[in-house]
């Protein structure tokens, strides 16, 4: 028989490579069970050009979120509602799977999902400066620096940590004559977050004749992941804030919600410890 070293084997036959790990219930990155997670590490405030920023690492995945506050006119329908504009960027820098240029379907759908979650998490009315005239718009740009899976989980975590880190000027003055807003130079007022959503992604894998959940699959493990589901749970209340998933048996979906609720509490504490 041919002897191949692990790197070569993984490269030429990724499915078989991962299947053998799966059969033993372990993971190539050293995790000891299918349901163990990579513990996120959160650092905040490293980018000083921002009102708030956070760097999150989940295993090798590294993502940086910077938030910049600007002033805009609110929409006529909702005169006190501010804006949060969150974009996820997976540049060619972070993995060879992404090409330079316009974002692909994957990136766009993550942006859209993150945006829909964050809109219900932030107290938008708290961003109002002068009803019908001026509100804060928070531009959140989430840039991946290294991509090893957990796109949705890491992106949302970085966004929420950065929002918690965001400070707005303590004093804003709206001038009705010329429509300008003046703000004090200190940044001291945090924004109000109604929820602390935490996303947990599971892959559905086939093992031993049945299907089971695999928590937090890496990019490489995609080779054997049939479909995936991301469950977003509010770490503060335990309420669900979104599920986005593909083909999954009902009982696994229920299991994933239960597991995600447990994990949200743990991750919530990590984010809560950051400032």
């Amino acid at each position, binding site marked *: 028989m041919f002897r191949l070293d692990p790197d070569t084997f993984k490269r030429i036959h990724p499915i078989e490579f991962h299947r053998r790990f799966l059969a033993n219930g372990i993971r190539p990155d050293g995790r000891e069970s299918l349901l163990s997670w990579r513990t996120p590490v959160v650092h905040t405030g490293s980018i000083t050009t921002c009102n708030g920023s956070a760097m999150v690492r989940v295993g090798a995945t590294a993502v940086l979120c910077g938030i910049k506050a600007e002033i805009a006119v609110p929409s006529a329908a909702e005169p006190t509602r501010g804006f949060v504009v969150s974009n996820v960027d997976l540049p060619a820098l972070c993995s060879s799977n992404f090409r330079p240029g316009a974002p692909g379907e994957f990136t766009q759908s993550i*942006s*859209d999902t993150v945006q829909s979650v964050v809109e*219900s998490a932030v107290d938008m009315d708290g961003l109002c400066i002068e009803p019908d005239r001026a509100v804060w718009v928070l531009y959140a740009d989430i840039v991946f620096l290294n991509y090893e899976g957990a796109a949705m989980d890491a992106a949302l975590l970085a966004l929420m940590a950065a929002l918690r880190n965001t400070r707005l000027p303590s004093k804003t003055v709206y001038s009705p004559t010329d429509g300008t807003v003046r703000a004090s130079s200190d940044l001291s007022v945090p924004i109000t977050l109604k929820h602390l959503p935490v996303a947990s992604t599971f892959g559905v894998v086939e093992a031993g004749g049945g299907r089971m959940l695999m928590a937090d699959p890496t990019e490489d493990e995609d080779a054997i992941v049939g479909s995936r*589901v991301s469950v977003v749970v509010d770490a503060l209340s335990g309420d*669900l804030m979104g599920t986005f998933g593909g*083909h999954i048996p009902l009982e696994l979906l229920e299991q994933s*919600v239960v597991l995600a609720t447990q994990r949200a509490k743990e991750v919530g504490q990590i984010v809560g410890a950051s400032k």
Partner: protein
Amino acid sequence: MVLQRSDGRTDNLQLRPPTTTLSPLSRADGSARFAYGKSAVLAAVYGPKEVRLRDELLDSAKIEVLFRPLVGLSGTTERLYEKTIREILESVILKHLHPRTSVQTFEGADDDSSSLILSCAINATILALMDAGVGLKSMVASVTCIIDDSNQLVLDPSAEEIKGAKSVHVFTFDNVSKDVTSCVSTGVYTYEQYKSVFEVSQSACASVQAVYRQTMENKVGGVETVDEE
């Protein structure tokens, strides 16, 4: 207390009878129109057909989905819809039967109101695939539910009802394995609410699948009568 919904239905768990039209397009390999109330989607299927070299897959058909809103250009939400539909199709189509080919589907939304359109698009696409004769493992059907501001579960909401909803759920179920084929939920909701959404959606999907069956039977029946003539 008699409940009155904005479009005259009297029960929160009442499904509007979907309207379906099969083969409205003559040039596509298969096409179908599916509508819940005013929200309608026209789907067209082309394939299996020749694939571009760089998209070629060694052992299965390449599935491409293109979703277009009625007005305006498509944005990130449409990409999310496309991804959702494509993932459903990849689990449903017997794609390994047609290696090195592509199956393309196009969905044109007839109404831009919210998540309801995703359900319509999924259903229209499945009908169009059946119309095109593309081999499927099972029939999947999709419904939309909301939890309204009084924490009531409302099935098949109208556009106005969705606007005031606390959470919106789009569920797609398979008729063979009874698995969830796709779920997209947004908003804030509890686990108990989520579970009740499961149950309601699952039975509603079964009735949509009955509509599929009826639609297809009409078609096959129609062909037979033509043959006899």
